[in-house]
């Protein structure tokens, strides 16, 4: 007992010390680069190419923040984090922000002392089955064997869903997505369940994707977003409003193609405020006037990034769905820039 209290005290001291350090913004400016925690590799969201350059949906957010703060989307160093190391990496100050498709939950926000700075992708847990199983709804899955990644929230969601519907299932525990794919194709399980973006990405790699269907039910809410340490509000604001700038840019029709044209001044005051030709929103954040211009210029607006890495034209082929702009029936919505 004494020992654990001792270690606990040390941990708390460590936390306190980490928080007492100068603002993250000053740190990043002094270092000259942003240290961004990403996944060790997730199709469409974060992956290194053959030259070692990271790219993907989450990676683009890191680059946008780097562009907003430092004016250079290349001024990022990526720290690959696993599901087990991601939170310590952020809490200990090893990374400045985490953009690693992390679900925003109560306990992570409140108990782990992080701040979620918005949602860049609305995901949800779904099911994939072979067509030959003849199932069209998840409610017909009574008695199925289910491939499930252990130690994730998906495991708990699955148990809840089957219990609520008074159904039984047999779990086939697996460790990684690659293993799940192999087991599922080999017929070791009838159903594979994980986030629907992951299902789509996995299905796209099958020899005959048409033989498999993703069932319509979504059994959980998985709002994924970037997070920062609690207690550094200025830095959290920067990440939050960089994401909002990308979202607003899509809503207002600012693209990487026309941004230079629009930056000369337009009749839309909100565009002017975002691009820094009117007012001084950047100054309020402690950034350059051109911060949002740089962020959008880095990889395009939210819609462009979506289409480039995970949209319908890519191998993953995700439709916008919940992630469409609010005007188009989705949930992507940015507070106004004023």
């Amino acid at each position, binding site marked *: 007992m004494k020992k654990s209290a001792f270690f606990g005290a040390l941990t708390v001291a460590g936390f306190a010390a980490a928080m007492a350090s100068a603002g993250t913004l000053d740190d990043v400016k002094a270092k000259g680069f942003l240290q961004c925690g990403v996944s060790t590799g997730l199709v469409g969201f974060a*992956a290194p190419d*053959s030259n*070692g350059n990271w790219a993907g949906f989450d990676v683009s957010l890191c680059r946008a923040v780097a562009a907003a703060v430092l004016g250079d989307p290349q001024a990022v160093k990526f720290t690959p984090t696993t599901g087990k190391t991601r939170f310590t990496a952020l809490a*200990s100050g090893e990374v400045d922000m985490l953009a690693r498709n992390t679900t925003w939950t109560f306990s992570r926000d409140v108990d782990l002392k992080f701040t979620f700075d918005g949602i860049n992708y609305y995901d949800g847990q779904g099911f994939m089955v072979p067509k030959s199983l003849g199932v069209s709804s998840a409610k017909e899955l009574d008695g199925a064997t289910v491939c499930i990644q252990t130690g994730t929230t998906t495991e708990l969601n699955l148990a809840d869903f089957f219990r609520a519907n008074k159904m039984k299932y047999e779990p086939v525990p697996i460790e*990684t997505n690659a293993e799940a*794919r192999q087991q599922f194709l080999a017929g070791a399980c009838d159903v594979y369940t994980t986030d629907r973006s992951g299902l789509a990405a996995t299905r796209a790699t099958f020899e005959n994707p048409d033989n498999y269907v993703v069932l319509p039910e979504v059994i959980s809410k998985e709002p994924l977003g970037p997070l920062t340490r609690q207690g550094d509000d200025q830095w959290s604001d920067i990440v939050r409003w960089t994401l909002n700038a990308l979202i607003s840019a899509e809503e207002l029709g600012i693209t990487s193609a026309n941004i230079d044209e629009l930056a000369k001044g337009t009749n839309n005051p909100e565009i002017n405020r975002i691009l820094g030709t009117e007012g001084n929103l950047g100054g309020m954040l402690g950034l350059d006037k051109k911060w949002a211009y740089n962020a959008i210029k880095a990889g395009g607006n939210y819609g462009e990034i979506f289409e480039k890495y995970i949209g319908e034209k890519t191998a993953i082929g995700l439709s916008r769905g919940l992630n469409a702009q609010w005007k188009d029936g989705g949930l992507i919505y940015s507070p106004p820039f004023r």
Partner: protein
Amino acid sequence: MSDVAYVRTEMVPEKAPPASQVGPIKWVRENLFPDIPNSVLTILALYFLYLALSALLPWIFHSAVHANSLNECREIIREAYGPDAVGACWGVIVDRWHQLLFGFYPQDMYWRPVTAFVLLLVALSPVLFSQVPRKMLMFTAVYPFIMYFLLWGGSIWLPLSVMFGFVLAPISHKIVAPLAGNLAGVIAGFAVPILWWGLAAGPVAEYLHSVAPVGIEYIESAKFGGFMLSITIGITGIALSLPLGIVLALGRRSDLLIIKSLSIGFIEFIRGVPLITLLFVASTLLNYFLPPGTTFDIILRVMIMVTLFSAAYMAEVIRGGLAALPKGQYEAADALGLDYWKAQRLIIMPQALKISIPGIVGTFIGLFKDTTLVSIIGLMDPLGLSNAIRADQAWNGILWELYAFIAAMFWIVCFSMSRYSMYLERKLQTDHR
């Protein structure tokens, strides 16, 4: 009358032995079909071999080598070998082999790890083979600094200034020992270099660099990956854990209470904890304890943990060798009037280490393969990279090709280690069996 019907006047020429007693037929009969149970086993084994190869060989050779994505691979294979053919997609290896070997190390700097690796073989040769001139050991002693300089780069003054600490040790011993006795000399021999490293080495290197900036581009640890990372961690662990293990084994057999209990405590603690726990301590827990802003290199942390881990196992292997020596050897050493260190160096250790060679090499091989565990804490070793490569949309879904390549690389290294240990055992074999 001659009743001798027939007298042979010359020798009959030798006949060839019956076909069943010579050549391949005899070998097959003796080795594969000597009796019924063995024949059945042979046939069964051949059948399983056939099953395995008939599935494996078409997969390996009905393959696509020049392709830029998994789907392209599939098309090429379908066109070449029919619509139902399944084959390996070696395109992923062609596209990413350099990443599997070097991680994210800058491509125009590949000569550095390659040179370091070649020099490693040169540095190892006098240790491994007694035919190589002994003077080469000088190079071996300097090699760790060369390796550090080549892999990480930066200013040349830092490794030189750290190396100077080792030069200080005998010098300070020689100066202090005549003045204040042998014990003080030994203490000074340890204390002066430690003070040098702790206080002076860094600033001196910085000063020298500002005066004469000699160096090559600094490559940060985050860029290390692939087999380069495995080999760097593995070699450091192997090189450091053997001496540490010897010290621990001697400590455990020592009569001095404190040294003995410290050694036992260390060994039993480390052996009671899984390596992955130690790696988690290295990657996450240490971050909380260190003052914020300290950058204590993650690879260095992992190296330390891996070294400590294998040192504990090494200590037990060597203790086994020490225990196997007959008591007479110790007594003979005492009778010759040798002191403790001389007895260990000249009589005990050469024999104990010889006995422990298989165990030592086994620990080395295990240590080298254990380096793949670092992928769990987010380091990009070959297994971690295989996941990252699969995250590329072009290669998502590739599994066996990457694993086959990684397995082949590991096999080469581990098999050579095992062969070398057999060579060493034969060479050192002095008894008549």
